[in-house]
């Protein structure tokens, strides 16, 4: 279970404070797959960062009662000047995962081959996503936080995620921010629509998508 209560996040801006989240409550039990819907700038990524506890909310609390991944998205995660291997070693150390097993899985999943010996800053967005997903699946979290990054993957990457994340690990929780209606409908079983800092919860993904398109 992830429990977030009364989340408020204000970014200071330059003299113009911006209220991104205004009293948002979220509960994600184990196994639940929650979609985050909302326009660009609605606060999806901000909410994911709060839920992962890497950024602190202005007020409100986030409690983790299961292991939660870091946000799998476009930024962060890796030190660009280091090679894929060095980044893998660093992450295996801080998550206390066995490096040999981890690297075998990532090598097989991400299919980066000799690119692993290149600095991560030379990777394409898709390659970074493959490395990040490979690592986070190998570490085995109870809940995965995924921020739009599916869009950048190729078909083979989608197929691998389908197999390793959605099929074999269907008992895990997912929190996914995405604009891809078909993907969300196929993957998630509930949704949170963000608009104007407020969050509206829907038990039915189709209703949520309808509400989102209506906005």
């Amino acid at each position, binding site marked *: 279970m992830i429990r977030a209560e009364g989340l408020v996040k204000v970014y200071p801006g330059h003299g113009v404070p911006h209220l991104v989240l205004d009293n948002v409550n979220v509960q994600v039990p184990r196994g639940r797959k929650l979609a985050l819907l909302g326009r660009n700038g609605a606060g999806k990524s901000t909410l994911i960062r709060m839920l*992962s506890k890497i950024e602190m909310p202005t007020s409100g609390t986030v409690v983790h009662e299961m292991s939660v991944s870091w946000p799998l998205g476009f*930024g962060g995660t890796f030190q660009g000047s*280091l090679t894929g291997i060095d980044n893998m*070693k660093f*992450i295996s150390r*801080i998550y206390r*995962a*066995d490096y040999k097993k981890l690297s075998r899985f990532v090598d097989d999943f991400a299919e980066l081959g000799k690119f692993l010996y290149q600095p991560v800053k030379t990777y394409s967005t898709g390659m970074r996503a493959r490395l990040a997903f490979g690592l986070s699946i190998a570490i085995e979290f109870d809940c995965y936080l995924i921020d739009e990054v599916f869009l950048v993957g190729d078909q083979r990457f989608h197929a691998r995620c389908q197999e390793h994340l959605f099929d074999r690990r269907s008992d895990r929780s997912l929190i996914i921010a995405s604009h891809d209606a078909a993907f969300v409908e196929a993957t998630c079983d509930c949704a949170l629509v963000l608009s104007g800092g407020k969050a509206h919860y829907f038990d039915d993904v189709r209703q949520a998508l309808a509400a989102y398109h209506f906005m």
Partner: protein
Amino acid sequence: MPRFSPGDSLPGFVDAARVQVIVISALMMRELHTRYGRENLGFVWLVVEPMMFCLGVMGIWTLLHGRVERGIPILAFVITGYLPLTLWRHVTFRAIHCFRANSPLLYHRQVKMIDLLIARVILEIYGMMIAYLVIAFVFCVLGLYELPKDWGLFYAGWLYFIVFTTAIGLIIGSLTEMYDWSEKFIGPLMYFLLPVCGAFYMSDWLPARYERIALYMPTVDAYELLRSGQFGPSVRTHYDLEYLTFACLVLLAVGIMLCRRVHRFLIVE
């Protein structure tokens, strides 16, 4: 694969401390790779850099002042002056925008901002200690340097220097993150503090009035402590241990508080 939640599932102080040790050591390994790479000397630079500095200054001072001045062997005076100074300078300049430069790593919630800084401080301490050992060994063999008379005082001086340096690192890391303009003041400030900090004089050389003022600078007390360990009772030293402890702890508390404050406002990419 071991199941591990870095966040809440690890209760208790001991486990939290263990996670922090793991994170800091991983950060140190990473820092060695990013800073020195794997080419040529690699991380040996960590030691060579302060050594070059110290050796150069030793040469210049010996030329200018001879081997002994005011009853103090110049070589030992320079070693005890320059190595701590280098530590302080390195940590200060490494701390500027330290958090920003490492912000991708903050995507992993067990990596705290304070860990980023502590990893850097520990690396600098290692570099400085090994540099000291090498220099001390070589010049001892050559008969130009005598080992400290009182190791306890010598270590105590170093320890205070390390605490002071860490505190300054935390303060500067946080301030430069909060206010961009603060970075501009650090260069001049460090330069002006150079003649004041105690690396190049003993407080006993000063008129009594100034001596008391000088001891308000914590580094002066730490230097005097370190040198009283180095030279023993043959050289007169003055230091106020209570004030030094008090000043270091206050600075450390301010540093930790600022660091926490920055964390509240940090935007991760």
